[in-house]
């Protein structure tokens, strides 16, 4: 899962990034409105955290611009002035949720996780696919009720696939959502990861569609 963080206070930004990375997210950050606007329009993100008080272009304008160019990723806004009007305007501009400063990163993480889950159409925080259960709040994965230990990359890939159950996901899409920008796109690390997940969670879980991508298969048998 790839998150865009647009926040001008570097320390706050760093805390958010660290917390997100520790939870298995891929993070890209921008420190002003202009950069945030550009990154949001050019990359494909699973969610964005957007501060409203940004230099150059303010957060509400960035959000308007994203929405008008068809960027429909879930957006969580951070407010420091926190008048109710600002929050209402934020949601009317197309934000999906807001968190008022000063916040605790745990709360922020929970909100981001819930946003992504709702955006991909899942009501419960525990995603289930056949024998595999993925708890989005704790990042705990079980297969046939046995806890399975996964590396951060494996977790990232499983999380993306679990959120998009049934869809055929291309290799490049997977790469984009579980790796940083500067990743070498020619390497065969995706195949390696898919194989490792098959080994840990069962060979039938991920189906390969040649030339198209991968699909999570959740049939009970």
């Amino acid at each position, binding site marked *: 899962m790839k998150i865009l963080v647009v926040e001008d206070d570097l320390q*706050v930004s760093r805390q958010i990034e660290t917390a997100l990375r520790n939870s298995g997210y891929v993070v890209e950050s921008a420190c002003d409105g202009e950069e945030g606007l550009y990154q949001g329009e050019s990359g494909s993100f699973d969610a964005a955290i957007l501060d409203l008080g940004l230099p150059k272009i303010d957060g509400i304008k960035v959000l308007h611009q994203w929405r008008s160019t068809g960027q429909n990723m879930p957006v969580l806004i951070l407010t*420091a002035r*926190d008048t109710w009007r600002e929050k209402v305007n934020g*949601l*009317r501009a197309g934000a*999906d949720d807001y968190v008022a400063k*000063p916040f605790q990163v745990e709360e922020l993480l929970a909100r981001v996780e*819930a946003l992504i889950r709702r955006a991909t159409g899942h009501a419960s925080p525990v995603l289930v696919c056949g024998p595999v259960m993925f708890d989005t709040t704790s990042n705990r994965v079980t297969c046939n009720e046995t806890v399975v230990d996964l590396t951060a990359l494996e977790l990232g890939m499983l999380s993306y696939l679990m959120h998009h159950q049934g869809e055929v996901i291309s290799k490049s899409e997977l790469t984009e959502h579980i790796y940083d920008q500067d990743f070498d796109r020619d390497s065969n690390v995706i195949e390696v990861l898919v194989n490792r997940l098959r080994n840990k969670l069962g060979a039938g879980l991920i189906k390969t569609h040649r030339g198209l991508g991968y699909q999570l298969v959740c049939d009970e048998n």
Partner: protein
Amino acid sequence: MRARSLSFRLFTTSIVWVFMALTVVGVLLTLMFQHHIEEHFDAFLYDHLEENIAAAIIDNTGELYLTWVPADRRFSEPYSGWYWQINQNNKLIATSESLVDGRLEFTQPDVDAGAQVQKVFGPHKEKLRIVVQQVIVPGSDFTYSFLVAGTVAGINRDVRNFTTKLVITLMLLGAGLISAVFMQIRIGLKPLRQMKTALKDIRSGTQKRLPEDFPAEVLPIVRELNTMMGHSEALLERARTQVGDLAHALKNPMTVIRNEAHEIEGERGKLLAEKTEAMASYIERYLSRARAAGSANVIGASVDVQAIVKDISFLMVHTYQDDDINIRLRQLDGLYFKGDAQDLEEMIGNLLDNACKWANSEVIVYGETRNSRIVLCIEDDGPGIPRHQRENVLKRGQRLDETVPGSGLGLGIVSDIAALYHGSLILQQSSTGGLLARLELPAAE
């Protein structure tokens, strides 16, 4: 037109002076007309008097006789009201045929007084006007009184006709003048009515300022009002910007400290976390109070309560969508708060947030206007607040216990802002056992 209005004062005083002026004009014109017609009448009588005097001669016997009599037929018709008479002291010498066998009584003027006008009564007690003169006819030693009389009935009739026409004319003129005065007042006071409308627009929020195209007399007031509104707005705006900047400047470091504190293990970390929580709460409360406009607004704009409740509900539905809370809005039509929109947002925001936080499944918002006060009720079906704790929750500077419903600082802020508007927040038990927050505020007209 109300009794205590400028229009009424101008209108009544105008009616009084129009009435008085027309009455004086009417009386003067009637008197002048009467005077003129009497002079004309007297001249006519005098002509005949001269004629009689000229016709009088003394014969050989010393008796006076007239060589001719006036030809006017009215002097020959019996009791026509037109007569002539010649006396020598009390002795009747000659009369017109119209007098038949009667005589006219009059006061004898002095010989050198010339022709004199008198009012006497005729044979039928009719009012007559006479011209009489003492004349010494050549060839006689005696003085003779020559008089010519005419009835005043004609004069009175003419004056009456004239007065009737004059009154009608003056009444029409009066009506015209009064409608002109009415128009003048309407036109003259139009700027004041426009000012009233403009103020109403400002109250309803469609205008920010009074337009400055008023006449010179009103313009200073308009400018003064605009300056006052601008001044209080600028003060409020500046205060809010500063509070906003302060919030922005404080909250980023607060976020950092708060998260770092949570990273520190053991008692010291716990202490730090606790203190930063407390700091965050105090900052929140005092910044909220600093943001409040209170009654700073001179005109007191009117704010649609329903629109704000809808906006905040929209926000709450988003925020609490995982908790499946149903927010029901009832009877909020036509509720208008007299005060600042942002203050109302702050109050409703905190109340609804608190209600949604503690509700099991439902929050109900309803309100009414009573005696120019708005009563807004927000009810939830949560655990409620025990009676003995309700007071504490609203107290200023109360230590906050996040485990007690409603003791989040929100309710205290609401109570503070309501107090700025001489309003109140009362906490009661709702019908479902949860909290019922009753917010009372001034209503706009």
